[in-house]
């Protein structure tokens, strides 16, 4: 019970700190904060797979990238409505996740990890080579941000950094609540059962494969949603977004934060992204620092940032 209350308090503190960010933070840090929030949504979607369903995907960037391209392509065709642009990323990624999941989930453990990696790399190759659609290595650039109905009357647009940050925060909170509800629902409990002992769950009559596929598709859809936001935020969608290093980075974020907690990956995403984008612009030897940080984490905080909070 105390753990639960500590978690709620931590979450509220985090939310207040974040919501007020546009008021006090320098513009650059609002930008980094926006990127971190988007990455946090992405990381939560992976935690759903990794922490709750025990599916270590090493190709999660595929869904992030597909979402970004879907949103970018639609926005460049003069669609400027927010909701469709957000949903198209989620839908496109979900559509891609169905076949990838159906094939990858036949394997487990490292084999599953490598299969997801393989499919992500195939999609990356598609993004690089299908130049008529994706413009190859240059990527889609100049993706405009959508309009927010009624915002004009209130005197702001999503092109400004503060409002866009709040939008990302709102989406992140919604995703968090959704995942929280999902993991506590009978569906979530069944997933945990499958993670712990699939054979037994199957014997009890659960269609385990369908459960795992369903959660894989939901995870993909949320990653696609994050991809949509990324395309709007940055104004581009490039093949880099689907590259395996991005899959690695988000996996690291989840592990650093502490999986199976949803909060952990959020913290991990902030840490990793601020380190990667923030640190690298300030510190010369940022790769060394980041690497040493990860090593230290494994050795001293094996349960991630969340473990630190829980212990305190």
């Amino acid at each position, binding site marked *: 019970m105390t753990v639960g209350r500590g978690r709620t308090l931590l979450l509220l503190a985090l939310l207040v700190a974040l919501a007020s960010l546009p008021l006090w933070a320098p513009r650059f840090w609002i930008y980094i904060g926006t990127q971190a929030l988007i990455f946090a949504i992405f990381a939560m979607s992976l935690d759903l797979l990794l922490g709750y369903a025990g599916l270590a995907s090493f190709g999660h960037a595929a869904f992030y990238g597909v979402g970004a391209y879907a949103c970018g392509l639609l926005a460049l065709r003069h669609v400027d409505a927010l909701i469709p642009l957000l949903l198209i990323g989620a839908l496109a990624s979900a559509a891609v996740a169905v076949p990838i999941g159906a094939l990858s989930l036949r394997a487990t453990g490292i*084999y599953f990890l*490598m299969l997801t*990696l393989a499919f992500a790399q195939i999609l990356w190759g598609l993004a690089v080579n299908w130049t008529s659609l994706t413009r190859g290595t240059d990527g889609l650039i100049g993706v405009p941000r959508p309009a927010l109905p009624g915002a004009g009357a209130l005197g702001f647009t999503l092109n400004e950094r503060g409002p866009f940050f709040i939008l990302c925060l709102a989406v992140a909170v919604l995703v968090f609540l959704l995942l929280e509800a999902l993991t506590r629902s009978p569906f979530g409990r069944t997933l945990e059962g499958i993670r712990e002992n699939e054979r037994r769950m199957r014997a009890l009559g659960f269609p385990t494969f369908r459960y795992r596929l369903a959660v894989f598709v939901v995870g993909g859809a949320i990653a696609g949603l994050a991809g949509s936001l990324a395309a709007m935020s940055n104004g581009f969608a490039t093949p880099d977004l689907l590259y395996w290093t991005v899959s690695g980075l988000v996996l690291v974020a989840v*592990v650093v934060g502490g999986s199976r907690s949803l909060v952990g990956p959020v913290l991990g995403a902030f840490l990793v992204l601020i380190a990667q984008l923030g640190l690298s612009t300030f510190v010369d030897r940022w790769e*060394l620092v980041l690497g*040493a940080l*990860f090593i230290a984490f*494994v050795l001293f905080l094996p349960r991630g940032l969340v473990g630190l909070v829980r212990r305190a």
Partner: protein
Amino acid sequence: MDVLNLAHGSFYMIGAYTAYSVVLATHSFWLALLIAPLLLALVGGLLELVFFRRLYRHGHLAQVLLTFGFTLVFVDLIRSGYGPTTRSIAPPPSLGGAVHFLGATFSSYSLFVLGVAVVVGALLLAAWRRLRVGAVLRAGVADKEMAGLLGIDLARVFTLTFAFGAGLAGLAGVIAAPEFAIFPAMDASVLILALVVVVLGGLGSIEGAIVGAAVIGLGYVIGTTLFPQVALVLIFGLMAAVLVVRPTGLFGRR
């Protein structure tokens, strides 16, 4: 050993850079071929003793994080030591030319690489199947506890195996140095390919790794000839196809 080591590509990279340094200092490729694997075995053994040993219990994710950290550290160290410049070494003079047979042209060095690969593969396979150390390892992979009960000092075996694996990666780095360019990001591409090979072949199986390498190698060459742009994509497609049909690789245990 059931360790997922993303820093294995770094061992390869360090092997190549060691070769570069040794060749620059002594002009002897053969000396590099001796020194680099020994150096890397030492590095690998130390890393196992200090870091990996604590992590076998924690599963693959902790290993991913730890070894990802090491790749970052190693690439930064290499870059600050050697600079970001692309380097290369020439093949040893005796292997610098080309050979013609069966109406095709091959570079002698490529044939040498092929020869080394066959010899190393055969030795590994023989050791794996016939020698005591192979039996011990197979026992360790199959069932750690049982092997421990049988009085096998698994900790030592694992350290030595890890060191040996790192040494082999170093050897590969030396062999690759005259064939490809040497640069600080060279670890990433080879790591992914190595993982693909091992997984396609099936984990914990030397036979699998050898067959996997052959399949991927052939697939890559045929791929580059037919569809040069998407050869790498084809490799992943190949692996995906195999795993979909046999979810534990060609030679993996069910």
